[in-house]
């Protein structure tokens, strides 16, 4: 800690208190590529894309769907008793499905299901899964205090109880790889057996070198939005979905304990100040003054609750291109993407839409 920041901390202005939000500039310069992207199909609450055998698996609430991206049709695979929170596929076609508060269901390529129970603190909030090999999965637990559907409460409680764990499928044995994370939301296999984790509430991507070792410096930090799932790109890099924008007002509320605690105690979460997957919904939702419609137009730069953003990262996790849906757009709340047969598929949870993008298009800067 440098002298200046020491002094700042002494006077109650530590780095954590700074309310500045990184600007969307440089590689993150906004565009409207997500809004102009091809719409594959509409499916309410679509999330958790995973590709297997030229098909895309996704969730819509409690239902697992299989989408044929070429025909734009979806078929129900299986319904569960609770919302699906994460899906992953293995090279051999196994599908791992995390179900809120139950555990991880393993579907064999033939369709036989097997539920692996997890500790209740883990099962409520499995946010992402990757297969390391056919017998081992790594999964993230966003929070040990709040369920996935209560993610906003975890953010507003300044939650940092997330962890990354591995699970051996044959034995059901779990092992914690890293903990005290502020809502890990995405996972990706990096080169040489490394794992990258997106830590959403701290707006960064961390490396996870080997079990037990604490994460070192971030691979990518100071993101202008809350990162969600990571997906592998065919060129060896990654895709990062960012589900909601950071706003100064949210940062302010996070340090305003009195206001925040009373808000959490007296107001339903959908009406809180903070990020969201989509606009609309309750008429009680807060508004920021830059988002007031002027002359019949919502300004694209308005400080909206939701936003659509997908970033392409190279092998070193350096961002090289970005795709946006701005305040006046609709394709907000993209929490998962998948690359399949040279096309990028993005699920806009806010708009309930599956989009197809051409990764070779003009977004490459």
């Amino acid at each position, binding site marked *: 800690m440098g002298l200046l920041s020491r002094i700042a901390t002494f006077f109650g202005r530590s780095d954590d208190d700074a309310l500045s939000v990184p600007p969307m500039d440089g590689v993150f310069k906004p565009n409207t590529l997500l809004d102009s992207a091809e719409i594959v199909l509409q499916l309410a609450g679509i999330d958790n894309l995973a590709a297997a055998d030229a098909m895309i698996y996704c969730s819509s609430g409690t239902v697992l769907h299989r989408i044929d991206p070429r025909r734009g049709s979806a078929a129900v695979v299986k319904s569960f008793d609770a919302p699906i929170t994460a899906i992953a596929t293995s090279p051999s076609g196994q599908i791992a499905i995390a179900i809120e508060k139950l555990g991880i269901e393993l579907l064999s390529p033939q369709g036989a299901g097997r539920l692996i129970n997890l500790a209740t603190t883990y099962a409520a909030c499995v946010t992402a899964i990757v297969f390391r090999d056919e017998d081992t999965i790594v999964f993230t637990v966003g929070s040990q205090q709040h369920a996935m559907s209560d993610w906003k409460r975890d953010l507003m409680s300044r939650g940092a109880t997330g962890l990354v764990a591995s699970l051996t499928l044959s034995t059901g044995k779990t092992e914690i790889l890293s903990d005290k994370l502020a809502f890990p939301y995405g996972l990706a296999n990096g080169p040489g057996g490394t794992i990258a984790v997106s830590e959403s509430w701290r707006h960064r991507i961390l490396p996870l070198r080997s079990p037990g070792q604490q994460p070192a410096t971030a691979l990518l930090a100071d993101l202008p939005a809350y990162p969600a799932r990571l997906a592998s790109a065919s060129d060896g890099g990654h895709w990062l979905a960012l589900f909601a924008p950071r706003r100064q007002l949210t940062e302010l509320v996070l340090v*305003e304990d009195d206001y925040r605690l009373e808000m959490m105690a007296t107001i339903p979460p959908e009406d809180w*100040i903070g990020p969201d997957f989509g606009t609309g919904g309750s008429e*009680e939702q*807060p508004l920021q*003054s830059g988002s*007031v*419609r002027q002359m019949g137009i919502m300004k694209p730069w308005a400080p909206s609750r939701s936003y659509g953003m997908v970033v392409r990262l190279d092998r070193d996790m350096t961002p090289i291109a970005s795709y946006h849906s701005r305040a006046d757009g609709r394709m907000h709340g993209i929490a998962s993407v998948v690359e399949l047969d040279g096309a990028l598929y993005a699920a806009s949870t806010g708009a309930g839409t599956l989009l197809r993008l051409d990764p070779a298009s003009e977004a490459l800067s």
Partner: protein
Amino acid sequence: MNNSNALTRLRYKYFSGRLVGEILSKSWIDSAIPVLALLVTVALMASAIPDLFSIGYMTDLSRQLAEFGLVALALTIVIMSGGIDLSVGSMFALCVLAALVGMNVLGLPIGVALAMTLATGLVCGLLNGVLIGYLRLRAFITTLVTLVIYRAIYDIIFPRLASAIVGNTPESPLWDFLGFGEFYGFPLSFIIFAIIAIAIHITLSRLRPGWRLRAVGGARKSAYNAGINVKATVCMAYVTSGLLTSIAAFLFSARLGSTGADTGIGMEISVLTAVVLGGISLGGGRGSVGSAIIGAILVLILTNGLIRLSTPGSVNQLLLGLILIIAVLFDAQWVKNRGKILSKVYVSPTYLELPERVRPKSDPFALNERLREVELIGLGDVEGPEDVVLDRNDNLYTGTRHGTIVRFLAPDYAKSEIFARIGGHPLGLAFAENGDLLTCVGGMGVYKVSPDGTVARVTDETNRSWLSVIDDSRLRLPDDLDIAPDGRIFFSEATIRYEMADWVVDALEGRGNGRLICHDPSTGKTRTLLRGLIFPNGITICRDGQSLLFAETWACRISRYWFDGPNKGKHGVVVSNLPGYPDNINRGSNGTYWIALLGLRTRTFDLAMRKPAFRRRMARRIAADEWLFPNVNRGCVVQISESGEILDVLWDLAGENHPSITSTCENKGYLYLGGVSNNRIGRIRLPDADPDWTARGDYWRKD
């Protein structure tokens, strides 16, 4: 929780910090610190020197002040014009020489000698003025050169006439009276100084030449663009400086009767110190006569005190120089940071508790999409139609943010024309009985447009309240108006603390910053009726002709005020705890009233209204575009009965066409909608309304 809320409420009722911002926004705050410095200096000197305040010392001080103060005023005028005059000391010496030559050497009558002295000052000042004003030379270098030139002239002439000056004494009782006479205990020279100072004060603060001078000093280019003759103004500043210096020199000569080789040497530094200490900004455009005098007294007391403490003269000069440096430093910081501090502390939120809204099963405010079927008028042709009103031929009138009133022609409203150009954004509109269109214009006042389009001001000020720090006599944001049967105009002023462009900041404060005002055309008088209203907005006269309904936007309530009859002066709430923020109120058919809801309450904003400290930190720490705001992206129109019963509610949920509806106007079975931040007017058919009803008929029972 309730206890702490009550405490918060009390704290913000009495100590909201509003005054800090308001005091900082006054122009006299520039002099407040010099006054404090003066008091401290006087106190220090009084403790160090026992008989500081003896009559003799005060008389002597006031004579010195007369001369020194006049030169300080001279420099003040020049600095306020954006320049500097270093030659005042040499000019002073030359003028003293002129006065003494006239009186002592030539033995001229006192009037002629005075004319000679003034002429010397005038010529010296004119030379500076022409060089700097018309030939555009740098003020600093020019007056530095003339300082040397005037001093050289003095040094050439003075030794040749020194013995003649000392040798002769003029036979003029008036001359002696000027030097030593007193008038009711005050030295004559001091009285002359006081008269001149008052005249200059009035000129600088109240008259056109003074305003022009400050404009030129504050922003030369803008002054030029505003049509001010910059060159002449600058030149006149130096000429005035020369004249004032010569008057000071004349008084000095009368007092001392002689001069020396060192007369006026170093004077520019002490005068400059005085002026800067007084708070005259070296950047130009800021300052006042009072500040100059305070600075002059400060420097005089300091130098005299130091002399009486037998400090050597060189140390004296050193101290003066140090003080000047500190004062200049302070001045630079003050000018730079004052605006910043002001912008940080001016917004002063207060506690405003709105009751929680419980939603019964049969909530009259249940959402619907009835405003979706709206027909659009003038899409893209109008910007900011805050209010809409129709005349007897069903033509539609609305104000725009371009400062015009636009008329859409019946019956299809496809064609429009500019009916009148106002200059400010017309908000509330109402027709008087004789067909005049009355309008509240943001930032200007209440204006009247006759049917042929002639614009006339009705009123732009009201009585000033004694306890208000900011000047509340000018109308800042008149919002809506209505006309009583006897022709009196009742209008609301939404806030006295913010201009038109910043009206949303008032939402953050939630204080009763607004008022209800009445203008009586028969007497021409404007009086404030109610103060402390929370953003009073819509106004409509009730059908009894004795009372009116007004909306308080941030308080989400409608109240009734009786201006005549048995209940005169009383007011009471009619509808409270609305789900949104009421804007304009207008009469509807069947004895009803229409209320436009600007936006919807949200729980988060209601909570913020109970947390003034949170809102203040929000205003300070994050950009205005990021501030929390009520949800004004939805539109709602409510119909109520006179007793406040909710009769009908129409919504535009998505806010595609009509977010933040600010006014409604029913006419012949249609409802017209306006919005202050919209670019269209809406019209919707009311199936149950009386198809012949017009507001004009309802008000004046004609047509």
